C-alpha cells in the first residue's frame, strides 16, 4: 500500500491541520498562550531532554504556528519547517544554525537589500564572512569557496533585478563542495517554483509576501529538504554531542529533520525571533488561496509588461517571461507556471529627466499603492531611487541594479483594465 499523493491545491488547504483534537474546530484554533502545562515532572524532563515531542513555551513551538510550518513544508515538498517573526529572522536562523564565528557564506550579489545588509554588516560583526559573487555565474560561486564555507545563498528571483537563479547549476557546485544550497523562494512562492526539486537543500521565505498574500502580517520560514548528508564532516554541530542538550547528536537522533530540530531547539530557543500565533493564523488564511492568487498575479504581470513595452512613455520593461528578456530561458525552465507579479520598467525622462519623471509617475497614480512591500493582493508601486535606495549615490544605486527612471510594480489582483488605466494616466502625467 502507498499513501495518496495529494495535489498542491489540496495541500494549500489541508496540510498540517486536521480538526482540533479537543473541540473538533475545523478552522485553525489560535492558541494564544505563552506556555503549556506538563503532565508530570517526568513528562517535563522528557520534553526538555527532547525525548518526546510536545509544547513547552511558545518561543520554541506553538500548535497554531505548527500548522503553518507543516503546511509550508508540505507545499515546498520539504521534510520540516521552522517559522519566524519575519523573513529576515528566518534567513538569520537558517544561517546561524549552519555558521559560527570564522565560517563563511558565498552569496549572490543581487540579493534583496535587507539581506545584503544583514550579511555585509551584521554577520560581519558576528565574524561570519560573506563573499558576494555574480548571481549568474556558478563558476564564481565555486571560485569563492573556502575550507570554512558552510552555505551557498541565492534567490529564485532577485529583487529588484528580477534575475532568475539557475538553481540546479548552483546545487551542483554546492554538492561538490559538501555544503547546503540555501534558496530564498519569496518572489516565486512554492506555487511557481519548488527549489528542492532542483537540488536546493534549505528554502527560506518572507511569508509576509505571496504566501501571506494580503499585506497584513509579517512572518518568515525556514524549510529543510531532509536530504542533505550532514555527516559529511563539515557540520560537526549536527553530528557531535550538543552542549545545550547533554550530548544529543541532532543528525543521529532526528535524522532527516535534524537541522530543523537544531534550528528550533538551539538557534530559535536562544535568539527568540518567534512568530506569534495570531500572525500564523492570519498568514495561513493567505496560504489557503495561494494556488488561486499566483496564476492571476503572474498573468496580470505579463499582460502589464506587454502593455508597458508598447507604451511611448516607457523606455524599457523587465519581466523574466517577456520574450527576449535575458532570463527568459531560465524562467521557462524554473517558472513554467508564471514568473510572479513583480516587474520593473523605466519611465521615459523627457524634459525633466528619469528621476523626476519617475517621481511624477508615482505621485500620479490613483489607486496603485505607493509603499515598500511586494506580494500584496493590491497593486503596489515604488520608485526605488527616491525611496528604498535614496541614501545611495547614483553609482551605488546602479551597482544595486537601481536606475533613476526605474519603477517597481507588484501587480495585484484588481481588474486588469483598471491597473492598465491607472498606469496609463500616471505615465501621461509623468511626461508633462
Amino acid at each position, binding site marked *: 500500500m502507498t499513501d495518496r499523493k495529494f495535489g498542491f491545491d489540496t495541500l494549500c488547504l489541508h496540510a498540517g491541520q*486536521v*480538526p482540533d483534537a479537543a473541540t473538533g474546530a*475545523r478552522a485553525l484554533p489560535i492558541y494564544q498562550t505563552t506556555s503549556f502545562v506538563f503532565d508530570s515532572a517526568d513528562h517535563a524532563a522528557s520534553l526538555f531532554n527532547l525525548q*518526546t*515531542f510536545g*509544547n513547552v513555551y511558545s518561543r520554541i513551538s506553538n500548535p497554531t504556528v505548527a500548522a503553518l510550518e507543516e503546511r509550508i513544508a*508540505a507545499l515546498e515538498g520539504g521534510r520540516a519547517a521552522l517559522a519566524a517573526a519575519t523573513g529576515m529572522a528566518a534567513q538569520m536562523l537558517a544561517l546561524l544554525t549552519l555558521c559560527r564565528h570564522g565560517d563563511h557564506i558565498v552569496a549572490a550579489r543581487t540579493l534583496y537589500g535587507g539581506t545584503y545588509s544583514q550579511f555585509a554588516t551584521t554577520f560581519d560583526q558576528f565574524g561570519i564572512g560573506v563573499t558576494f559573487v555574480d548571481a549568474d555565474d556558478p563558476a564564481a560561486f565555486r571560485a569563492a569557496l573556502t575550507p570554512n564555507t558552510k552555505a551557498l545563498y541565492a534567490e529564485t528571483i532577485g529583487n529588484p533585478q528580477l534575475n532568475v537563479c539557475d538553481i540546479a547549476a548552483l546545487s551542483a557546485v554546492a554538492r561538490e563542495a559538501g555544503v547546503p544550497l540555501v534558496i530564498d523562494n519569496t518572489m516565486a512562492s512554492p506555487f511557481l517554483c519548488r527549489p528542492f526539486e532542483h537540488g536546493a537543500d534549505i528554502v527560506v521565505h518572507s511569508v509576509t509576501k505571496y504566501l501571506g498574500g494580503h499585506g497584513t502580517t509579517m512572518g518568515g520560514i525556514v524549510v529543510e529538504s531532509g536530504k542533505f548528508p550532514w555527516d559529511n564532516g563539515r557540520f560537526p554541530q549536527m553530528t557531535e554531542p550538543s552542549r545545550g542538550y547533554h*550530548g544529543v547528536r541532532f543528525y543521529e537522533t532526528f535524522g532527516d529533520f535534524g537541522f530543523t530540530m537544531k534550528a528550533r531547539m538551539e538557534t530559535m530557543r536562544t535568539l527568540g525571533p518567534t512568530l506569534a500565533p495570531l500572525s500564523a493564523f492570519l498568514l495561513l488564511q493567505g496560504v489557503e488561496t495561494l494556488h488561486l492568487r499566483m496564476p492571476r498575479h503572474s498573468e496580470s504581470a505579463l499582460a502589464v509588461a506587454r502593455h508597458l513595452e508598447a507604451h511611448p512613455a516607457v523606455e524599457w520593461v523587465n519581466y523574466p517571461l517577456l520574450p527576449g528578456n535575458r532570463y527568459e530561458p531560465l524562467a521557462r525552465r524554473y517558472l513554467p507556471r508564471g514568473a510572479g507579479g513583480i516587474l520593473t520598467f523605466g519611465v521615459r525622462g523627457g524634459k525633466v529627466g528619469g528621476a523626476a519623471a519617475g517621481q511624477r509617475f508615482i505621485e500620479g497614480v490613483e489607486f496603485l499603492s505607493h509603499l515598500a512591500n511586494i506580494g500584496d493582493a493590491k497593486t503596489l508601486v515604488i520608485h526605488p531611487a527616491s525611496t528604498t535606495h535614496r541614501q545611495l549615490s547614483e553609482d551605488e544605486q546602479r551597482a544595486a541594479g537601481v536606475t533613476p527612471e526605474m519603477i517597481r510594480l507588484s501587480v495585484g489582483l484588481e481588474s486588469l483594465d483598471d491597473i492598465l488605466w491607472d498606469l496609463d494616466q500616471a505615465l501621461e502625467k509623468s511626461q508633462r
Partner: protein
Amino acid sequence: MASVDDIAGLRRILSQSRVIAVVGLSPNWYRPSFFAAKYMQEHGYRAIPVNPNASEILGEKCYPSIAAIPVPVDIVDCFRKPEEMPELARAAVAKGAKVFWMQLGLRNDEAAKIANDAGLDVVQNRCVKIEHARLMGGLHWAGVNTGVVSSRRRA
C-alpha cells in the same frame, strides 16, 4: 506481501501493539534507542530491552535474547547492524511476534522475506518513535511534514 509503509498500515500496527522487544537498546540516555524506548513507554507501550550487557534499562529487566523474554511480544524493534537482521527475523518468528520492525537506516530484504513468509508485518527503515509521533503524537508540533491529510479529529 511487502513492507508496511503507508499511513493506514502503520497506524494499524501501532494501535494493535502493546509490547515491544527493543533489540540493542542502549542504557545511555542520549542514544536514539533510549529516546525511542522512553518515548514508547510514555505513550502506553511496554519496552522490553534485549541487551546481554545490561541488567535493567528504563525500569525493565534486560534479556540476552528475544527467545529469553518470558512474555508474549507484539513488535520486535531492531537497533542492530543490517547483517544481523535475518537471524533476528528468525528469532522474532520463533517468538510468535506479530511485527518485525527495522529501525531508521536499516533495510534487509532477506530478513523481510523470512518475517513476511511467516505472516509477520515488516517495517523497514523507519523509527518506531518518529512514526508514532508522526501519526498519533506530537511530531506535527515540531514543524515536520507528517503527510496526514484528513477531516477527522486526531484520536
